[in-house]
């Protein structure tokens, strides 16, 4: 059985290889600026934060949350703006569909590509964090595949909106109405127990919360308390979103 998605993935890799360096700088410069500005700036005001009965430096708290946010953002950008350019603007997908490749293969390739790119960004940030000495936990090795799953989940979700988009403007809604609120409600910047109960209940269902709950303890050299629950929810978000993305993309192309 030929992996028909592979040459499509390879195509994106080949384009990216030509632009890798500037794209890498862009992808990791912003999260690192957040980390430095807030981690060191706010960190000196805040000092330490209480996480699961343990006090941790704010810098570690923020680093472990912001890397999850970076996984989300990198996957989302690629599966929204870049995939939309290929699908709608450049008509790359239409060209591919004239070869023996199905639309589902193309969507799968785009999903895996966005997840791969997110993993690449996250890895680069991890290396910088290690170099800065923010965490030396050996459990970070486990955080790596979890961040890949996060990339997969968020690229699946973004592809749903890619399938619905008429233009780039549409993605602004996704960012301002969904991703940005989620960033504040998932415990990236501050612990969730400060929020009212109902907000906490809502936050517990957000996909980014699952990632943060899994990754943060690993940064602290601890194991997550409910790993299977969070992994299961992420997988569920990914699976359901991917199916919806497939159905909506097929509808979009069945003109």
């Amino acid at each position, binding site marked *: 059985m*030929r992996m*028909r998605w592979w*040459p*499509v993935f*390879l*195509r994106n890799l*080949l*384009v990216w290889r*030509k*632009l890798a360096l500037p794209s890498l700088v862009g992808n990791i410069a912003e999260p690192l600026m957040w980390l430095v500005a807030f981690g060191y700036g706010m960190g000196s005001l805040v000092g330490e934060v209480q996480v699961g009965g343990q006090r941790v430096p704010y810098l570690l708290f923020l680093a472990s949350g912001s890397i999850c946010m970076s996984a989300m953002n990198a996957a989302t950008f690629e599966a929204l703006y870049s995939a939309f350019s290929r699908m709608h603007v*450049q*008509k*790359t997908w*239409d*060209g*591919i*569909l*004239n*070869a*023996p*490749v*199905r639309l589902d293969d193309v969507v799968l390739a785009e999903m895996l590509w966005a997840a791969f790119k997110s993993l690449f960004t996250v890895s680069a940030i991890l290396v910088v964090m290690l170099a800065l000495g923010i965490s030396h936990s050996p459990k970070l090795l486990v955080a790596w595949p979890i961040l890949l799953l996060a990339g997969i989940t968020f690229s699946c979700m973004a592809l749903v909106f890619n399938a619905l988009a008429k233009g780039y403007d549409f993605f602004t809604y996704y960012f301002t109405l969904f991703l940005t609120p989620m960033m504040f409600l998932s415990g990236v910047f501050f612990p969730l127990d400060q929020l009212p109960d109902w907000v906490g209940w809502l936050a517990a269902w957000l996909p980014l919360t699952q990632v943060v709950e899994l990754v943060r303890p690993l940064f602290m050299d601890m194991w997550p308390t409910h790993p299977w629950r969070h992994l299961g929810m992420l997988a569920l978000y990914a699976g359901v979103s991917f199916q919806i993305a497939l159905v909506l993309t097929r509808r979009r*192309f*069945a*003109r």
Partner: protein
Amino acid sequence: MSASPPVTTTPHLQCSDLHKRYGDNIAVDGVSFAIEAGECLGVIGPNGAGKTTTLRMCLGLTTPDSGRIQAFGMDMPADDLAIKARLGVVSQFDTLDPDFTCAENLLVFGRYFGLPDATIRSRIPQLLEFGALSHKADAKPGELSGGMKRRLSLARALISDPALLMLDEPTTGLDPQARHLMWERLQQLLQQGKSILLTTHFMDEAERLCDRLLVLDHGRVIAQGKPRELIAAHLEPDVVEVFGAGALALIDSPLAQMAQRVERSGETVFFYTDAAPALLAQLATHTGLRSLHRPANLEDLFLKLTGRQIREAS
């Protein structure tokens, strides 16, 4: 014009009674046709006649509501991948990868067919030469002229050495030199025994390249056959176009009796006649009129069958 079809019983492509509707709009309404090996079939028709929908159904991109599509003895869409492995497609708008050079475009596209890199790389030089693009191997599509882009699209469609080519308006927007070069290349492909399904708005292109024509309008086949035979069957042999002051008055003059059909378009009057010399002699007595005498062509046929109304894409 093309090589005689090799001995084979299965047509490359056979469509039977295709139907497709979008809501209340009937796009294709009972279209049937076949393409034999080595044959060039032209599909002509006004905008919205159902050409692109028919082509999309043949490519498995749109599912017909009813009807059957077979290619190389296999069924579309059930065997879509196996059929597409033997198809070469040039769509109406270029889908070239702007970030890749010409050579990379061919390499990347060949991979979609599951071809090994070594096989693709060995084909690239001759395909670039076929597209008259050898000197542009390392140029990106953005640096190419319109004609070069179309030839790169054609070369890309040939990367898998397909038996049947589907070309949607392959020369739209090209200058005469580029069109002639494209025609020459397509004729070469026909001589190699490949078959071609082509849509076009250019009647000279249809007449020059196509062994057979399918005229579509409102989703139906309204005529089909060899270009010259279609013209002979539907039209008077000669056309006299008359324009200038007083031309329109001729429509109701005795002179109109010398033509089988008279049509008006703007300030020009068209006389379709089998008695051109007599009509021209009469015309010579009207000073101030200018006229053009020519044999009836495919464009006349097209306009007769589909009318002179403008069909704006809705």
